[in-house]
């Protein structure tokens, strides 16, 4: 039987589900947990563990435990997000080829999709164990606000995990599907999804079999972990004031602080206050053990994270505005994600949306359930559901002057295709470089660069005589394709815009091979409790790293807390010197993209730029006379040198005027940016 699963690959937690015989089931792991921590522990002995058991290793073995890898997916090494992650992660984040990110564990460097692949493979195995047969097909969810780079990285991860990724589905859309499926509703709902590391809001119109996303907005760096971070800051500051020791500098202390902060935060979902006690968190200069103790009240916590919660509503404002709606136009709000269990968040959401949020869906499982429903529909085991989604970010093309012109606006439904016509900027120009961005800024460098490609081999002609059609396509997964064509010669260049720092096809293939399980993964279904216990024991032993960590595991199994502490201390002491040196050796973060590769020439494109910048800081009011004189500028004059500027050295193409008569709008000469060296090719 072909069965396709749905996987919610979360920053903190992942969940797998299947829809069959008209029912949706979440498949629990062998510890009977419906959700599995998205944490990977690489034991020194080579054993890899994924899940909660790996998460507990973060405390003992921080530099071999990778948490929240999703925050790094599809990111450039120099990005703000990676800098932030470097500041708070205790594992090593290093630079790979082409500004990519690698996670370094011991002397092995892992690509980020490789880490996510390990989590995905674990979820695949959880499903296989429960179902008793192999699983090869899956729908994987992504935050709606993920850009193309992040989506491609997720697809790559799926492939490395040995899965055929049927579809990438936006998490809020999946949640809405699980909520509305089979209910025959006609409603307009908001899905408020606050996870471990990302926030998404989508506004949907749901019908019996059609789910239309009206708008989506988000923040790919805002979630429950940021709440933890605020608590950690508070605790560390107080500790510093009290004992003059900076806990943030001690990796082991920091990991324990992290765990304690998260536990306390979760406790506040139920209780008015939470007491945090960490015995023996560090030793002072004299070797005396120091303890940390603090009682965190709900109001103190609210003061710590209030601004983060408010930030989500700024995003909600935007989403409503994009959908042309107000909160009164909505029929309901659905909560997704762990932090929405906090009364603080729940109440703020209720207040913002002026209604009680729906509580009939489990905020941790609803996304995987939606993915499962759609997976089953795609393979024909469930009734078809039609998900009409949108692209979260505007798709842009780099043009002269360091600008990026919009081709497809955000919140445009997908799949979509747009073709724009450009022409060369110089006589006998040999090639053009096409750079594609996603984002909401007119300035190219404030957007995410998706990739670039060079188009050459068109006819040899004077400037303006070559027509180049560039076609931009966004598919139903939100993945971008760009092709260029010269209609006259039929010469075509086609490329899937691939993240410059992403994995190449060859790299993916070799990773697939590397992670291929040696034995077929078919396992009998888990049923007997005995088998369950046995496997728990097996796993615990297998994954306990040799050397010092064994002591910890032993102590823990003996249930003796003080012994465990002692072992930890010993381990910390033994490794301290080495660790400190190791940390220093971490390469310094780049300040930004290397000039040569990414910086755009600042050539001012007078005719196009100033006209198209509504409300921009330097907007020039042009009257009819100005427009006419601009229109009168011949192509040669424009090409020869924009008024008041150096000749456009790096400028290689300009927007064709073929559409001008349609609008009677002169001055739409926008130039595509290209490197000077292109001309010599």
């Amino acid at each position, binding site marked *: 039987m072909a069965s396709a699963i749905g996987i919610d690959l979360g920053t903190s937690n992942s969940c797998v589900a299947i829809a069959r015989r008209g029912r949706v089931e979440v498949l629990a792991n062998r510890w009977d947990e419906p959700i599995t921590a998205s944490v990977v522990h690489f034991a020194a002995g080579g054993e890899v563990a994924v899940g909660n058991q790996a998460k507990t290793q973060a405390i003992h073995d921080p530099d071999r435990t990778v948490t929240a890898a999703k925050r790094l997916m599809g990111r450039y090494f120099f990005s703000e997000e990676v800098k932030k992650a470097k500041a708070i992660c205790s594992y090593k984040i290093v630079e790979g080829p082409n500004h990519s990110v690698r996670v370094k564990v011991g002397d092995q460097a892992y690509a980020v999709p490789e880490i996510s692949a390990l989590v995905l493979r674990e979820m695949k195995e959880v499903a296989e164990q429960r179902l008793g047969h192999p699983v090869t097909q899956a729908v994987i969810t992504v935050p709606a606000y993920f850009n193309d780079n992040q989506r491609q990285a997720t697809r790559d991860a799926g492939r490395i995990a040995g899965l055929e990724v049927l*579809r990438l589905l936006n998490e809020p859309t999946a949640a809405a599907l699980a909520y509305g499926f089979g209910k025959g509703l006609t409603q307009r709902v908001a899905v408020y999804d606050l996870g471990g590391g990302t926030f998404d809001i989508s506004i949907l*119109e749901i*019908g019996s*079999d*059609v789910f*239309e996303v009206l708008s989506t907005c988000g923040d790919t760096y805002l979630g429950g972990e940021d709440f933890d971070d605020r608590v950690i800051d508070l605790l560390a500051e107080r500790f510093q004031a009290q004992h003059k020791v900076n806990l943030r500098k001690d990796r082991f202390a920091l990991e324990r602080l992290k765990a304690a902060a998260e536990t306390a935060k979760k406790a506040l979902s139920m209780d008015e206050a939470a007491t945090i006690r960490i015995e023996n968190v560090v030793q002072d200069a004299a070797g005396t053990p120091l303890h940390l103790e603090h009682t965190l009240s709900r109001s103190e916590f609210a003061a710590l994270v209030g601004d983060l919660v408010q930030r989500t509503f700024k995003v909600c404002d935007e989403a409503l505005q994009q959908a042309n709606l107000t909160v009164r136009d909505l029929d309901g709000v659905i909560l997704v994600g762990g932090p929405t269990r906090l009364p603080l968040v729940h109440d703020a959401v209720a207040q913002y949306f002026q209604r009680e949020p729906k509580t009939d869906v489990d905020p941790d499982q609803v996304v995987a359930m939606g993915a499962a429903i*759609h997976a089953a*529909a*795609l*393979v*024909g085991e469930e009734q*078809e559901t*039609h*998900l*009409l989604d949108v692209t979260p970010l505007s798709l842009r093309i780099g043009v002269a002057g360091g600008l990026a*012109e*919009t*081709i*497809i*606006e955000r919140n*445009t*439904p*997908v*799949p*979509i*295709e*747009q*073709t*724009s016509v450009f022409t060369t900027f110089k006589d006998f120009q040999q090639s053009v470089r096409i750079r594609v961005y996603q984002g909401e800024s007119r300035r190219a460098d404030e957007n995410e660069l998706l990739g670039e490609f060079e188009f050459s081999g068109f006819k040899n002609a004077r400037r303006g005589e070559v027509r180049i059609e560039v076609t931009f*396509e966004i*598919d*139903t997964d939100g993945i971008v394709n760009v092709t260029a064509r010269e209609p006259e010669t039929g010469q075509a260049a086609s490329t899937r815009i691939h993240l410059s720092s992403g994995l190449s096809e060859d790299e993916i293939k070799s990773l697939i091979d590397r992670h291929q399980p040696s034995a077929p993964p078919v396992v009998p279904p888990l049923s007997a409790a005995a088998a369950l216990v046995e496997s728990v024991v097996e796993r615990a032993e297998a994954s306990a790293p040799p050397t010092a960590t064994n002591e910890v595991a032993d102590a823990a199994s003996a249930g003796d807390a003080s012994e465990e502490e002692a072992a930890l201390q010993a381990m910390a002491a033994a490794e301290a010197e080495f660790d400190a040196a190791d940390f220093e050796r971490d390469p310094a973060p780049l300040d930004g993209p290397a000039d040569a590769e990414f910086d755009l020439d600042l050539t001012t494109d007078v005719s196009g730029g100033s006209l*198209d910048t*509504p409300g921009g800081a330097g907007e020039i*009011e042009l*009257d*009819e*006379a100005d427009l006419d004189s601009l229109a009168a500028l011949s192509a040669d004059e424009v090409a020869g040198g924009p008024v008041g500027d150096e000749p456009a050295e790096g400028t290689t193409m300009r927007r064709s005027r073929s*559409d001008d008569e*349609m*609008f009677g*709008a002169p001055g*739409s000469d926008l130039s595509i940016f290209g490197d000077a060296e292109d001309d010599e090719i």
Partner: protein
Amino acid sequence: MATATAEIRALAAILDELDYYRVLEVDVRAPVSEIRAAYHRAGRRFHPDGHRDLAPDLRPDLTRIAKRVTEAYSVLRDPRRRRVYDQQLTANAERVRMPLADASAEADRQSRERREGRTPNGRRYFMLAQADLARGDRVAAERNLRTALTFEPDNANFKELLAGLRGKR
């Protein structure tokens, strides 16, 4: 609901001749609610998620139709874009497609013109009136608005603003 192979083939063959109304099979006067309903209907018939049994050689056709459907919807659901598109169709019934970015830029331009004037002088005096108002000088604002109206006697926004100023006096 599976769409018949023949239907996909036939539609793909004539797709480039259909205007957005025909793509969505709606009347040119259809209200937005009908446009949306038509989009949902088309979604059921042509969304690439359906049709898993479709012959592989028909996939590109299906995708092309689906993309055109979303394009049509993107224009027709947006009153400003739709207005620009209707003008285009009236001028030249053969031009059945319109680039989305240009359509919104053009719609922006038109709405700015409606607000701020379409002639250089009309716009200039309107701007002067705005500046007067910002300073609180109603008399000067009224004078400048009247001047603006001599260049664009039919500008509704100018008239409204002037009427407002007179009413307050």
